[in-house]
């Protein structure tokens, strides 16, 4: 199965790190990079996005709010918040929004675990 994954992060470096790990873990999937919330929402509405990875700490945007917005139009989409901020409150909010949490700095293992889980969910829904 091939999926399209959206990554939202204002830091080019972070996107590069993400892309790099992505290549290693799921080379057959497609990665769509966006730098802010507006671009992300546009991508979600115009392209077919299956999975989203969202940076928590972006200027003028609360990453978790973006998660909520995406879930309004795409309730079943597996979404993860990516952040160095591993405080209980953040993780708790992510859970409430039915989103995963991947800590920064990104490790291949953490990303792989999430993506596998996401694929599984999507498969279940399809059947």
């Amino acid at each position, binding site marked *: 199965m091939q999926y399209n994954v959206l990554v939202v992060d204002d*830091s080019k470096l972070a996107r590069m790190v993400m892309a790099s790990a992505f290549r290693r873990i799921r080379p057959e999937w497609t990665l769509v*990079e966006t730098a802010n919330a507006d671009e992300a929402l546009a991508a979600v509405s115009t392209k077919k996005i299956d999975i989203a990875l969202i940076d928590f700490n972006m200027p003028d945007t609360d990453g978790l709010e973006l998660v909520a917005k995406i879930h309004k139009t795409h309730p079943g989409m597996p979404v993860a918040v990516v952040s160095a901020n591993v405080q209980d409150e953040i993780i708790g909010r992510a859970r409430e929004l039915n989103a995963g949490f991947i800590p920064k700095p990104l490790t291949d293992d953490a990303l792989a675990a999430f993506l596998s889980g996401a694929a599984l969910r999507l498969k279940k829904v399809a059947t």
Partner: protein
Amino acid sequence: MSPNGIDLTEIEQDALAEIANMGVSRAANSLRQMVGEQVLLSVPSVQIVTRLAASKLVERNDAKRLVAVQQSFEGPFDGRALLIFPEAHSLELVRSIVGNEHSLDDVIDLEQEALAETGNIILNGCLATIANMLHRTMRMSLPSIVRGDGAILFGSDTSAEQFVLFLYIDFNIKKRDVRGFIALLMDLPSIAALKEIVNDYVNSIQKQSPSHVG
């Protein structure tokens, strides 16, 4: 800043900001344990400026009375790290970390210590993250407290540390917003070394993925 050629390229700026953000997030995680509530820290921007410019920048909004937690660092690059607040905010910050059960007297007594530790956590968060990300080891001193205006904080003219890696930081602790700065004072070789290390890092990541959809 062009004359000296110590500009950060876009990608360098990006990288440093990202690293700094991760650094302060890490610090925020630590602080959260103490505070008991969510602590938000972020670094909106990073730039390299002269010491003089930095001393003016920290005095914005007419805040001439400043307090700073200072640590020195050694490693692939050397320098001084400063966490700087307007004095009026520092008590606020300490109070929000310390909690309400302490009286005014106690807080004033505690302020020095608590500020030192808080600063220590934040600066360590940044420095350690930098060290980790860049796969380097460093040595850092214990914190000390300095009070004064921009000129006092950024040191005498005899200091070789001419450049400042200047980071704006935003705090939000217990619904209080505090604005401050982190300044890494380094001499020219250190800045150059830092830049080199950052570039290496960026390149290494780029190398890992021959192409990516941007």
